[in-house]
């Protein structure tokens, strides 16, 4: 099956068309166009203040775009007030009603649409089961833990079975373990209900875990929109490359070759080779971006076209993996990662050891900006 975003005939559920939002003279969202498809789990990723919440609030109807239009199922929703949209939002602050019990919080939206009593009760029970909150139905929001509150907020926004669910940093307040559990729960719910999700996060791991596609934002603009693996493996700029995970960036000048480029990057060092489809002109400034886990570390000089040598400056031990910071003669510091498949006492390298680093021609990505 073709992914809808690669299918030119697919009809998007949401379509931002040249949307701009300014607060006074400040551009929070800057001429942004984006299509999101039905049953997608779309993650918006970016640093704090880049306009993610503003984008969601425009979808929910709390802010109107300054210019451009937003289509939901082919209909311009700009003039529709929030209470008339088939969109529900889970707020960054959860926004639970403190005067209502967990049950009444979840039932709130259903009561507004005058759902019959029996049907309402069974729907709320269904939501309570889904979010594992049955035992807390009669508690008030202040009588439950942060993680439970977050699940109430989720259940409340899911209860009306919206076409589109907006989640604004839904796991910001959770500890790591609960966050991971909830992420899988979300994906599970999404598969069960078929709702389209748009999730805002500033945690790249979260975006990678849950999303069908990730949009990386910077200063009100989308820098790249792709599936998580594509974003990770083929970032289109040094900004995206360094925003997702760890990366080594080596700056130099390109010389085009038959299958890619050779990079002149430091005085007296051999050229680095990189396979790429992007065309560079001779002498053009560019960066090689290499993920630390794609760099191998050796005690002896390896057989490879891309190799450098240096001394171990620092070792970050993370249990399952270790990251070695290796300082080259040129002054560059390169990070290389190895899995700790041996016990730590039998580690091959230690501080101040002289080591070789190598990688293949396809490991690096050449970036023009």
């Amino acid at each position, binding site marked *: 099956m073709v992914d809808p975003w690669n299918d030119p005939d697919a009809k998007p559920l949401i379509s931002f068309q040249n949307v701009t939002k300014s607060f006074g003279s400040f551009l929070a969202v800057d001429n942004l166009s984006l299509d999101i498809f039905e049953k997608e789990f779309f993650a918006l990723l970016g640093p704090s203040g880049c306009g993610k919440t503003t984008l969601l609030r425009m979808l*929910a*109807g*709390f802010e109107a775009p300054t210019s451009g239009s937003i289509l939901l199922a082919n209909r311009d929703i700009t003039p529709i*007030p*929030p*209470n008339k949209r088939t*969109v*529900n*939002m889970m*707020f960054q*602050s959860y*926004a*639970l*009603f*403190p*005067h209502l019990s967990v049950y009444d919080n979840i039932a*709130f*939206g259903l009561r*507004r*649409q005058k759902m019959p009593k029996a049907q309402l009760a069974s729907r709320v029970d269904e939501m309570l089961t889904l979010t594992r909150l049955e035992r807390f139905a009669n508690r008030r929001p*202040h009588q439950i833990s942060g993680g439970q509150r977050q699940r109430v907020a989720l259940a*409340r*926004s899911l209860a*009306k079975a919206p076409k589109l669910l907006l989640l604004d940093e839904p796991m910001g307040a959770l500890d790591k373990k609960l966050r991971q559990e909830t992420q899988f729960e979300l994906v599970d719910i999404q598969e069960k209900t078929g709702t389209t999700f748009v999730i805002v996060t500033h945690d790249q791991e979260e975006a990678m875990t849950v999303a069908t596609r990730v949009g990386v934002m910077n200063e009100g603009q989308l820098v790249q929109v792709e599936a998580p693996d594509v974003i990770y493996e083929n970032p289109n700029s040094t900004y995206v490359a360094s925003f997702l995970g760890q990366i080594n960036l080596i700056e130099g000048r390109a010389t085009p070759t038959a299958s890619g480029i050779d990079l002149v990057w430091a005085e007296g060092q051999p050229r680095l080779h990189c396979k790429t489809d992007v065309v560079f002109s001779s002498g053009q400034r560019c960066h090689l971006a290499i993920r630390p886990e794609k760099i191998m570390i050796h005690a002896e000089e390896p057989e490879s076209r891309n190799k450098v040598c240096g001394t171990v400056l620092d070792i970050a031990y993370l249990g399952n993996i270790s990251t070695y910071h290796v300082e080259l003669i040129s002054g560059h510091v390169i990070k290389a990662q190895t899995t700790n498949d041996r016990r730590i006492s039998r580690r091959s390298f230690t501080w101040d050891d002289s080591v070789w680093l190598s990688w293949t021609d396809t490991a690096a990505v050449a970036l023009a900006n």
Partner: protein
Amino acid sequence: MRRLTWFNTTALTFGFAFLYLPVVILVVYSFNSSRLVTVWAGFSTKWYFELLQNQLFIDAAWVTLRVAAISSTIATILGTMAAYVLVRSARFYGRTLFSGMIYAPLVMPEVITGLSLLLLFIGIGLDRGLVTIILAHTTFSMCFVSVVVSSRLANFDRSLEEAALDLGCTPFHAFCLVTLPNIAPAVIAGWLLAFSLSLDDLVIASFTAGPSATTLPIRIWSSVRLGVSPEINALSTLLIAMVSIGVITAALISKRNLLRQN
């Protein structure tokens, strides 16, 4: 907690004596069987029964209660609405001026408020009586309500209202179902404040009352000018009891709410 020292005990005793001795004397003498206010002649509740026979006082009490109940209710509705608009609405031209102006009547001398209202009522040809007192009391107590309510609204999370809209409420329903229940303690406190302000107002009521309607404070004031009677003491004792109940209720409500929030 540290034990009270000799100095602290003395300071406390004198302070409270200064505050409450006059009130205690008034309450004690309301149970005096003698008509002479300054001579104790034994315990009796006869002045309370006599009070019940005095039609003038009963009429005035009835007027006062009606004025207080109606004016504080209207003031609470208007004051809450004003507070809501001033705190919640997007910035509109002159908003700061409006917020400032709502505080002005708090510091305006009562004589001036009373006089200006009197001139207004004469100007538009409204006969002075129950209606004019209610209007006058609504006018000045509304500001107190809106000050109390707006401080609560300022601390109230805006996203709760947005969540209500998001779940299908109209803005009016969102206000009734989410905002109001959460600011209710402030609204009730505002109502109690307006009620007690209206209950003990003498100055503004004197300007706006007419021969058809006289409030209790005016009645007490005018009869005291002919000499203090034990009946007045009894009446004042009843008023003190009522105000105390009101204040204690308000305190309990806000305390319970505080407990619930933590």
